[in-house]
């Protein structure tokens, strides 16, 4: 591709949230007639970049130009007026209105001050022709499949004289055939001169569609590459922040415990309908099993299945050699399995409740509501946890939502350690927390292993996985593609398995 004048350019764009630099002086260009993939793991800054671009969240610093004109949208509406249209993963149209109404909302053709329905439907049909959609535009949007709704959302975006089209995970809810239709349309839009920003975690699709790739990590831009010149393995290295070094060092020698007793947790051929396929892993007491893989590879789904949040459609879970049927978190807890979930805010903390209550609640739930833990015991429990984990809080009666992310994570860890589980699942325990808390949580993982707990830990950071894992299970597309043991556990080894 020849170097043309960029359609959209960002220079030194910075965005800070309390305690986090979400975008650290990022430069970013989109040329006309290109599909530009924006990649990175969770927390890399993709969503923040899009929010800054679409006016949902104004930038702190830096410059943006669209078509050589300075751009500072203060709302999504302003960004749209300037020519930046966004289509989100969840279709945000009005499902109870007709397709035509959705397409022309806010600029309906009028006749004597009333909506001219005939002309509106005709215009809508005309618009959709470009998308090879021949549907009854007078029917409510909700009657059509998600794929068609997505296309209508894109049609609406493009119809508003867009210059830049931002697609945030547009294919997450589409099947293969629908993805093809969408890609055909995107290619023809590209041919019309549109600049398309494409955010996804499906790398196959990136290689199928995009012209250039920009990788973000921890709020920083790693680089912009021509897709054709960037091998997949190299791309994954950029995303995970690790370069192949051709060495095998780095793995702390772990004493092998095999053969001594039944596994604390054994998973055999676990499948969940529409999710993970054929996962098998074994964790002995005192072992930490790392779950590696890119975003969307099925790491979280494995944890969900083991904790009874999703029900197995095939395969079995054994505790100490005995098969257990786990169909709910309560069932998992009864079998001494605990989970620190990935999404702390929705599934972890109970924000309005105090630090003390948040720590005591799992133990209380296991005892049953009719056997309350005396307040004095709760205070001792919380006091000990606050001291041991160095939870920064003025007092234990403070609502937990007022604590920082790292301290909230420690509260949830304390909650689970209070029930002294045999198996502890940690889903991304170090995400979104500051570096100090990060180190403490890694040290804690080691201590828990020493105390004889079996741990399953997911992480996007190879260095972490190598540091604590006795075994690493590598996942891709909801399948288990490799199990690394002993000296094979190196950052190189994991990376090669992911990229293979």
């Amino acid at each position: 591709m020849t170097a043309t004048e960029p359609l959209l350019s960002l220079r030194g764009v910075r965005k800070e949230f309390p305690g986090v630099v979400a975008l650290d002086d990022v430069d970013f260009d989109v040329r006309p007639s290109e599909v530009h993939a924006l990649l990175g793991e969770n927390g890399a800054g993709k969503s923040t970049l899009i929010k800054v671009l679409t006016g949902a969240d104004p930038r702190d610093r830096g410059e943006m130009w669209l078509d050589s004109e300075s751009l500072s949208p203060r709302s999504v509406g302003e960004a749209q007026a300037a020519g930046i249209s966004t289509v989100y993963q969840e279709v945000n149209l009005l499902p109870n209105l007709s397709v035509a109404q959705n397409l022309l909302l806010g600029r309906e053709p009028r006749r004597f001050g009333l909506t001219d329905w005939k002309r509106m439907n005709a215009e809508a049909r005309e618009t959709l022709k470009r998308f090879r959609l021949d549907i009854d535009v007078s029917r409510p949007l909700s009657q059509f499949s998600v794929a068609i709704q997505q296309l209508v959302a894109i049609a609406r975006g493009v119809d508003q004289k867009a210059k830049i089209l931002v697609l945030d995970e547009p294919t997450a809810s589409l099947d293969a055939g629908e993805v093809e239709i969408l890609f055909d349309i995107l290619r023809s839009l590209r041919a019309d001169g549109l600049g398309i920003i494409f955010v996804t975690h499906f790398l196959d699709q990136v290689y199928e569609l995009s012209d250039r790739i920009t990788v973000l990590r921890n709020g920083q831009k790693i680089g912009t590459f021509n897709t054709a010149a960037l091998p997949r393995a190299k791309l994954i290295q950029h995303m995970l922040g690790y370069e192949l070094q051709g060495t095998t060092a780095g793995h702390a020698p772990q004493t092998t415990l095999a053969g001594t007793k039944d596994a604390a947790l054994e998973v055999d051929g676990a499948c969940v309908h529409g999710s993970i396929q054929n996962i098998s892993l074994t964790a002995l007491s005192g072992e930490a099993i790392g779950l590696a893989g890119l975003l969307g590879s099925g790491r979280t789904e494995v944890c969900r299945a083991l904790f009874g949040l999703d029900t197995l459609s095939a395969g079995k879970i054994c505790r100490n050699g005995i098969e257990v049927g786990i169909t709910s978190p309560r069932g998992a807890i009864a079998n001494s399995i605990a989970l620190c979930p990935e999404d702390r805010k929705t599934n972890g903390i109970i924000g309005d409740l105090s630090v003390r209550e948040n720590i005591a609640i799992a133990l209380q739930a296991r005892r049953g509501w009719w056997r309350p833990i005396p307040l004095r015991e709760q205070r001792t429990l919380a006091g000990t946890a606050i001291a041991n984990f160095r939870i920064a809080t003025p007092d234990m009666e403070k609502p937990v939502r007022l604590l920082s992310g790292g301290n909230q994570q420690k509260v949830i860890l304390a909650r689970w350690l209070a029930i002294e589980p045999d198996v502890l699942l940690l889903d991304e325990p170090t995400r979104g927390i500051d570096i100090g808390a990060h180190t403490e949580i890694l040290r804690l993982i080691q201590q828990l292993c020493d105390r004889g707990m079996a741990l399953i830990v997911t992480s996007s950071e190879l260095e972490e996985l190598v540091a604590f894992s006795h075994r690493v299970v590598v996942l891709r597309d909801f399948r288990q593609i490799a199990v690394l043991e002993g000296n094979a556990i190196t950052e190189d080894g994991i990376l090669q398995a992911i990229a293979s």
Partner: protein
Amino acid sequence: MNGLRRMFAALKRHGALWPLTALGLIWLVILIANPGFFAFTVQDGRLFSGFIDILNRCAPVALIAIGMSLVIATGGIDLSVGAVMAIAGAVAANLIVGSDLPVILIVGIGLCAGLAAGLMNGTLIVGLGIQPIVATLILLVAGRGVAQLLNDGQIITFQNEAFAFIGVGILLGLPMPIWLVLFILAAMLFLTRGTALGMFIEAVGANASASRHAGIPVRSIKLAVYGIAGICAALAGLVATADIQGADANNVGLWIELDAILAVVIGGTSLMGGRYSLVLAVIGALIIQSLNTAIVLSGIPPKFNLVIKSVVIIGVLLLQSSVAQAQLASLRERLST
């Protein structure tokens, strides 16, 4: 002085300061309009006072507000309480007229009818995933229909002193409904605060998904609070039925769900769920009843009643809202500089 300040701080921390202030102001208005209103006199072993009268009249709303607090704390709502009152009243009246069952058993059956109605609400919400406002709306409509069918479209009247006692009886100088409110309040405080149930209810309301992850039986908790709300509503229905010695399916407890929800909200419980206070909900019911009495006593024409009531309630809610308080604080700062 210091102790007083500490008491104020404690009241404020528990969210009790503004509801109590409002109650005090309303009582002050009553006192100005009618200086002898609160005077206590004893007659025939019975205590008489305007104060007792307010307590007695607010009993049905207070009983329902206690159950409603728990429902609202889980993030739900129960619109069917008035209809459940009608069902319980109809069940009891028909049994009194048509059977020789002992009164205590009739009361028990009436309460069971309320429990069944509450569990039906809970099943629709938990089992079928219907939104609470819609699920209980069904019983709001259907419940009165059931009560009318039970009564065969009539108002069933009866003469039964033992049953009438729960509505008009006097125990140790005080009307029976007041004792019932105190008993239910104490029982529910014990049930929810003496155990971990209250903590679970607040956890479910504050974050249902995280509660499930922590191993709390979210569905059972929700089912339980609607059951409790049903029992509370049934008891209120029995009191109202005993009071007039008749079961009026059309009018008993009409619109009472709104007063009960209002009492809970005045007591500071958020309709989003989470923290709740049973005592403050009862104080909320007291405020509503005191307001009714104050308007009547102050000689304002009755046509102004509803408007005045709304204005006062908006005032109480504004005082409690953190947004309004922040704005007041900044205004005070600007004025003082």
